């Protein structure tokens, strides 16, 4: 039988071993769960069904070919925490798992309980603001130099990241100089999500990138082709077929290298390669198919 001292040693050893793993989430991510909590406590299926229905409606209403639902390897560290983290531009934000995540949505639309939009389309300048109930946080890189109008921003730091803040009555705008990116938050739940901003970690799911390309039949001149191209991820080996309309195509995928192969009847087309960058547009080199 172990003596009293042996029991003490066993307890001490278990305590030291158990205390070693670092927290799977940050304090700001834990606070997000606080807002998210009432759903779980009710323990009833109805609220879950309502959220699922809202997400489904949002997907049906706002869906476009370009919009991509974020997915990928589940971050282990958040697997049971009720919080999911996404990264782009070297930054990371975390959201409750009940939130909707979209990459390059045509227009930002707040969802209930919330939506995280990563990346912006070129058409977003024409989008109206404050659409829909619930909350929304947008994270996107700027493609032009920053220009402030009106009230000067406040300099501050969020989890060690310097930001310039500009808040109005209904929204908060943060500019992150180191990433040349902006975060915009609207709705009650956005503040908590903005507070989770930090430098990207491996545990976060990287936002996809978008590749824009063109395909031509080359004979005496260049003729735009309509049809399909095969897109193959050189990282995961997965392939997909993307429609080409009047020589133009667009696809999105996880960051990494892709091979794009065109086809135009019997005309041989040289495959091209492109690297997709998280949250950004990349230009695919033109696919040229040799005609007679």
């Amino acid at each position, binding site marked *: 039988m172990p003596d009293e001292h042996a*029991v*003490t040693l066993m307890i*001490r050893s278990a305590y030291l071993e158990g*205390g070693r793993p670092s927290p799977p989430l940050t*304090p700001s991510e*834990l*606070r997000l769960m606080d807002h998210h909590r009432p759903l779980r406590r009710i323990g009833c299926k109805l609220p879950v069904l309502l959220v699922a229905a809202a997400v489904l409606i949002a997907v049906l209403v706002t869906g476009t070919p370009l919009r991509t639902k974020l997915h990928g390897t589940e971050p282990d560290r958040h697997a049971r925490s009720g919080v999911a983290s996404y990264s782009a531009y070297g930054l990371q934000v975390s959201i409750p798992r009940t939130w909707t995540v979209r990459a390059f949505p045509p227009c930002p639309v707040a969802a209930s309980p919330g939506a995280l939009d990563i990346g912006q389309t070129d058409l977003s300048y024409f989008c109206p603001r404050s659409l829909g109930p619930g909350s929304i946080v947008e994270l996107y890189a700027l493609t032009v130099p920053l220009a402030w109008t009106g009230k000067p921003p406040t300099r501050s730091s969020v989890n060690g990241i310097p930001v310039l803040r500009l808040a109005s009555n209904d929204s908060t705008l943060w500019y992150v100089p180191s990433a040349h990116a902006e975060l915009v938050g609207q709705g009650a739940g956005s503040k908590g999500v903005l507070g989770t901003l930090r430098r990207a970690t491996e545990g976060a799911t990287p936002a996809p990138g978008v590749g824009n390309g063109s395909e031509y039949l080359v004979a005496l001149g260049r003729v735009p082709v309509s049809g399909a191209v095969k897109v193959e991820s050189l990282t995961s080996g997965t392939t997909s077929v993307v429609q080409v309309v009047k020589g133009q195509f667009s696809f999105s995928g996880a960051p990494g290298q892709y091979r794009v192969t065109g086809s135009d009847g019997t005309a041989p087309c040289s495959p091209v390669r492109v690297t997709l960058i998280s949250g950004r547009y990349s230009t695919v080199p033109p696919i040229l198919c040799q005609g007679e």
Partner: protein
Amino acid sequence: MPGSRDEASFDAFFDAAWGRLQGQAYVLTGSRESAQDLTQETLLRVWQHWDTVSAMDNPEAWARKVLQNLGIEWWRKTRRRRPPDQLATTSVQPESHLELAQALQSLPANHARALVLHDGVGITVAQLALELAVPEGTVKSWLSRSRRIVAEQLTQFDQDPAPR
């Protein structure tokens, strides 16, 4: 009101207390995943009451008590979900830690708490006496008696590894 709670002071508390609470949770459950879950749940409750808890002399003592209660609840649910003889075999942790956690369940709640906090976390008898609101002599007696009971339980597990 979530907005009125002091986030900066909670962040500091979270960073300082996480490892100790998780260690305590691991001793109680013998499972890494469950220890992480219990610690997270404990700190969530701390945050929900942060206005009150942060004003206490020893906020971590409050957190430890919450954790201990969650640990007891966890064992109750675990026993209900899985037949007792499967408890050890379904864990990926070294069996000794699971057996230790099981042995601690045979103690009265306060005795187990004292033993884990003293022998594991390293809290002194005097501090424990304050935290548990009992005389120091009582704490010492609980500790000694609890260690003997745990030792007996562990021996029994060795001799009869079947259903428990």
